[in-house]
């Protein structure tokens, strides 16, 4: 097990390094200019001075300086938010997104897995049909539509939640719910497929023949196998949910980090692009590591194979 963790950690560090290099190449080869905003043109001398100030006149120097800073968890200045450093932006926005994302993933697992199990067990019943409809809506409706619908129903018509913003606990449930919908749908779908396979397999028949109760067989024996695909989906899904979503943040007015992924790219803000990418890929590698460890814990054959 320890061998597995060390191996995956080393691989993860290499992957993050490659991701950084790739992002750097993309960022410096982008057309456009982070120092030129709106309609004002800045004089070439000033631009040269700015480039020199941010080490951007020498690509190799910029590459190494940013990397050295990132290792010390200092991501340097942004080019578009004048009084902010990347660290301050991440420190103010990431906790918000982590909180909403964590809640969204919890909702997705707590709702998606039971729906998947029940619709596999009661295959073809009205429950199965209803949950299928829900799943289809969840993966087909854009989040900005479901989010706005929730906002109108809960905040404007029923007045049980604030219309938007951030600060109190009451602001938390709606964005988390809106963010979780596609994940709920996908997890329900994965669980249902896994359960159908598991319920048809020999070990379930054996367990039933030995006299185990249906409840034990479904929720213990079969679900343990059916949960594995959900687990491997949860790695990337958690990283994605916890780095926020531009759409959810815009609809509900939440100051999360998702908006910075989009705005940094639109502003060609090299420092912020690379910091957000590093945050995302670190989270991704971390969650994939956790998933691998859990996987090996549920299914011991995995760690022996490595």
């Amino acid at each position, binding site marked *: 097990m320890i061998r597995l963790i060390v191996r995956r950690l080393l691989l993860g560090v290499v992957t993050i390094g490659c991701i950084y290099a*790739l992002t750097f190449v993309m960022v410096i080869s982008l057309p456009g200019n982070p120092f030129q905003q709106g309609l004002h043109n800045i004089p070439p001398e000033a631009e040269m001075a700015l480039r020199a100030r941010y080490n951007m006149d020498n690509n190799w120097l910029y590459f190494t300086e940013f990397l050295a800073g990132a290792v010390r968890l200092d991501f340097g200045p942004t080019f578009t938010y004048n009084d902010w450093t990347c660290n301050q932006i991440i420190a103010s926005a990431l906790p918000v997104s982590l909180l909403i994302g964590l809640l969204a993933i919890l909702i997705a697992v707590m709702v998606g897995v039971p729906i998947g199990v029940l619709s596999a067990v009661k295959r073809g019943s009205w429950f199965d049909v209803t949950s299928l409809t829900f799943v289809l809506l969840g*993966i087909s409706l854009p989040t900005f539509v479901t989010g706005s619908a929730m906002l109108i129903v809960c905040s404007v018509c029923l007045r049980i939640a604030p219309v938007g913003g951030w600060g109190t606990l009451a602001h938390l449930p709606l964005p988390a719910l809106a963010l979780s919908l596609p994940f709920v749908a996908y997890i329900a779908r994965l669980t249902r497929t896994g359960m159908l396979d598991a319920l048809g397999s020999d070990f379930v028949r054996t367990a039933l023949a030995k006299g185990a109760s249906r409840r034990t067989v479904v929720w213990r024996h079969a679900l343990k196998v059916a949960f594995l695909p959900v687990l491997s989906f949860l790695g990337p899904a958690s990283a994605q949910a916890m780095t926020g979503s531009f759409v959810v943040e815009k609809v509900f007015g939440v100051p999360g980090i998702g908006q910075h*992924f989009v705005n940094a790219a639109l502003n060609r803000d090299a420092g912020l692009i690379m910091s*957000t990418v590093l945050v995302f890929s670190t989270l991704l590698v971390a969650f994939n590591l956790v998933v691998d460890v859990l996987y090996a814990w549920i299914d011991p054959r995995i760690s022996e194979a490595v």
Partner: protein
Amino acid sequence: MGNAEWRIPNSESGGRRSLFAVRSTPWGRFLHTRITLVSVLLLVVFLVTSVITLPFSLRWYNVQELDTAVRHPPAVSPVVHLEHFVPRDVSLPASAGPHGLKPAARPSGNENTLKPATRIAHRASSWFGHDDLGRCLFYRVLPGFLVSLAIGLMAATVAVVIGATFGAVAALIGGRIDLLMMRIVDVIYGLPYILMVILLKIALTRPLTALFAGHTKYADIVILFVAIGGVSWLTMARVIRGQVLSLRSQPFVEAARAAGAGPFYILRRHVLPNLIGPIVTYATLVIPLAILQESFLSFLGIGVQQPTPSLGRLAADGVEAVNTFVGYWWLITFPCAILVLTLIALNFIGDGLRDAFDPKSSAATLV
């Protein structure tokens, strides 16, 4: 749960029998389930409707009627003016309005003088209501469906070309290069999807706009689907690589090799025909993803640009209209309904294709 009954699933109980129960071929199996048949029919109906109405919608999607039809709710009888529907060569008596935009005095148009097709088209113009500029939603949703479908199809094509080539080359070369190529796929998987699409779109804008020499409307759509397709090929590459690797070790390929067949003969005769199934399947599953992705980009304001309609663009506009004042329900309902039905149908078709070409795999099927 106590006495809950479940049927142990097996291959025979899946899906109800349809009229087309020829199950010996993949395509027969595909049409075997009723739900895929319904999905195909639904898409065909949408496609035929939007193609038939194309002459009207091309003329109509951007015609504004600011005085009578601004945010007019859906109605059975038309509220838009008749003169837009009269062919251009038939001149109606009209004096120029105050801004020279529109006749001030309405022609006393009589619907009965129009050709039947034109009359129906005129009636249909009010069925879905009107948007904030008084444009008929009906004649924006239908071409919007075509634009979205085109973006989806082209993005899927781009993804298939890149992904299948990458995966097949990796599997055929093998060894270290294969390992390296698959590492590259892993690394790109680690980049945030939406950021990649935006960066790719920024990078492509200048060269492609130059290529289209000023036709920004088309360049815009091309940039969109190349950017979306350029990010969606990763899964395809993995699937194709796996398929080629497993095909290469199949007994019939070994037999062909033993019989003296060259590598290109084997590729053309044995490998490629067996790849068509997974390629078609995953391409079908990329289409709904690409359409959804386009709607997010439209919401960000960097998708299809006004006045070109797409389902995502219309849904995003509708959400804005509904957010300011509750009440303009038709602006969100009709585009979203068509969007959802299209995506659901495409998902069902993709799953049907997967079941048809690979009856054993049931990974993440819907039904």
